[in-house]
């Protein structure tokens, strides 16, 4: 029997069927499995939420007492009739230490990352990368120890020099010596500590730069540095920024090394070369949980500020890296 065809010689088409819905009824043990791991995952969410919640709840009394002046007051007078405390000085200290740390750490870290990805002989690369990772593993209390006993005595000469010759810049002025236990020295130690983090992520990012573009630059007669400047660094810009922000977050949160250097000082000054100064993290480490109920509330509120700050920086760093050209293959 002949089959009817349309003008093109094909059998007439029936209306396109709609796709069937594939049902994947899971077995019970799979349901349990999926539920369990999902609970674990959501548990992290719950944990994070609780951390923030408790810090705020128990820290709220501080805001009740001080109001918005919490953010503009320094000091830690938590006992007595007229308590006066605030996060201003310690926030300033945290930021200063972090900035000094970045100023010192970023150049060293980027050059190290470039060395590892571009200059190191292939046979040595694995060992050197392992060593840089080891530098990240060394506990911060040991860096603090080293900074206090070894770095500080050798740097005070340099601090004095800076305070003499750069006194026209206000923050470098030293109004009341000595120059030990300063935010500057703390920043130096933290700077050394954040180098491995920044270097590691940057190195990863640099090594992902497309080989085709590298060869293109070299074939045009570029020197290695010119090739790096025109191919590797532009490609790795997003990843580098993310890495630097990670270092910033770490520098803001560094507690023990800073506390060892700065010590239990109550002198709080904006001059970074002279002694005195405090960061939020070291303030909490040294004074918690003394200071009575106000003290605890104050420190918890300060802690919440720090928590929020580092969380925002970390999330921003992650977003920047993921959206950049270089970040696609890198995990932050």
């Amino acid at each position, binding site marked *: 029997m002949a089959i009817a065809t349309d003008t093109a010689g094909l059998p007439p088409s029936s209306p396109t069927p709609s796709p069937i819905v594939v049902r994947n009824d*899971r077995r019970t*043990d799979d349901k349990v*499995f999926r539920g*369990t*791991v*999902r609970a*674990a*995952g*959501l548990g*992290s*969410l719950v*944990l*994070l939420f609780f*951390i923030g919640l408790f*810090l705020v709840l*128990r820290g709220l009394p501080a805001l009740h007492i001080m109001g918005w002046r919490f953010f503009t007051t320094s000091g830690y007078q938590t006992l007595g009739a007229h308590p006066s405390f605030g996060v201003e000085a310690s926030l300033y200290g945290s930021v200063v230490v972090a900035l000094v740390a970045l100023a010192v750490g970023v150049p060293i870290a980027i*050059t190290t990352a*470039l*060395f590892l990805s*571009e*200059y190191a002989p292939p046979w040595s690369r694995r060992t*050197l990368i*392992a060593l*840089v990772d*080891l530098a*990240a*593993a*060394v*506990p*911060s*209390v*040991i860096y603090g120890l*080293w900074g206090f006993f070894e770095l500080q005595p*050798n*740097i*005070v*000469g*340099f601090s004095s*020099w800076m305070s003499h010759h750069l006194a026209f810049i206000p923050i470098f002025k030293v109004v009341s010596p000595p120059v030990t236990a300063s935010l500057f020295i703390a920043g130096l130690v933290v700077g050394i500590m954040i180098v*491995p983090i920044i270097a590691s*992520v940057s190195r990863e990012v640099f*090594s992902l730069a497309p*080989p085709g573009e590298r*060869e293109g630059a070299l074939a045009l007669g570029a*020197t290695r*540095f010119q090739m790096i400047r025109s191919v590797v660094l532009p490609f790795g810009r997003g990843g580098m920024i993310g*890495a630097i922000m990670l270092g910033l977050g770490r520098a803001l949160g560094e*507690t*023990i090394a800073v506390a*060892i250097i700065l010590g239990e000082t109550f002198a709080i000054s904006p001059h970074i070369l002279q002694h005195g100064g405090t960061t939020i993290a070291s303030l*909490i*480490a040294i004074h918690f*949980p003394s200071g009575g109920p106000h003290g605890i509330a104050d420190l*918890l509120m300060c802690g919440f500020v720090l928590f929020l700050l*580092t*969380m925002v920086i970390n*999330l921003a760093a*992650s977003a920047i890296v993921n959206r950049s050209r270089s970040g696609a293959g890198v*995990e*932050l």
Partner: protein
Amino acid sequence: MSTTTLSPPPLGAAPVTPIRPPSPVRPRDFGMKDAALLALSALSALALVWVVFYQLTLLSGAFGFLVCWYAVFLAMYWLASAQMVDRMAASDRVVTVAVVTGAAVVIGLLLFVVLWVSFKAVPHFSWHLLTKDQKFFQILGPHALSSVGVAHAVVGTLEQVGMAALIGVPVAVATAVFLNEVGGRGTRLVRTVVTAMSGTPSVIAGVFIYSILIINHVLGYSGFAAALALFVLLLPLVTRTTEEVLRVVPSGLREASLALGASEWRTVWSVVLPTARSGVITAVLLGVARAAGETAPLLFTAFGSQVMNYNVFSHPQGALPLVVWSNVRQAEPVLVTLAFEAAFVLLVIVLVLFVAARVLGRTRTRGRRRGRTGNGRLFHRNAQPVPIDLPIDIGGNYR
């Protein structure tokens, strides 16, 4: 127009003696003359800065000298190179020096710190430091150091970190399995949360446990509280590194297992996790090493102790970082020495964990490429495959 033909020799001719191929070389742009230039620049910069420093100005200090020398050295090297080769090559050379310096500083400082702690601690080290605690410590006695030890701290650290790992590793691995294997709703949210948590300062973790459990006396100062605080720190780190490890497991294995009729659960348990086992062990060890070195969370949870306390659930417990922290700024030299000994023991523990992590992470991955030019190769054709480590790094916030 030349015609070169490698045709087989005509029949009957005498056998041709094989010509030995010439020896291979790698062309180098940096020869003896260039090395000499580098050395000369360094020396003349040294001489110049020496004169300026000690004869002419009031600059002082070893550090300042070093900085000045380095700056003058780079400038001189550039000027001298620009005479010998063109300006681009001179800049390239100076940058090479700077880059090598950066790496040398990092590695040098690391070795400096490790060796410095060791040199300060080893001369006073004896085995009783690992067996005694501070109960019978006579600070002012003549043999003060021999009456004290850090055994309580070692026990404390091991118990706290061990417990934190005990609680933390299953949760972290489960979360990583959720993110990588199960997925679905909430994946992006959980991943964001884990990223956010990994930036949490360690002191916040301690403060959190204090304010949620200790302040209202649910828990007293104890090793367990410290373990909880360390768990908070451990969780994001181990989750992320484990997730990376699971991602490397080839999807073909999962598909094969499912095709054989295994449930998802059995696939993960019997196929994926065993394949990734060494990587997971590495991730765990790195997390543990990191946790062992943390001090701040212990301040308000374990609180520290001077006597042995095996009970992790009640009473304050000591820990190695706490011993360092409480003794570092003391006036008595013997206390400072104690701090150094504790630091040394802590360093050894962390180093052992780190090395174990790397060694265990390497054994299973020989020859497995990750498809990236991780070691900077520009072009792969004909090159030998290089064993590439699993992408595990230590540290809080990066892979």
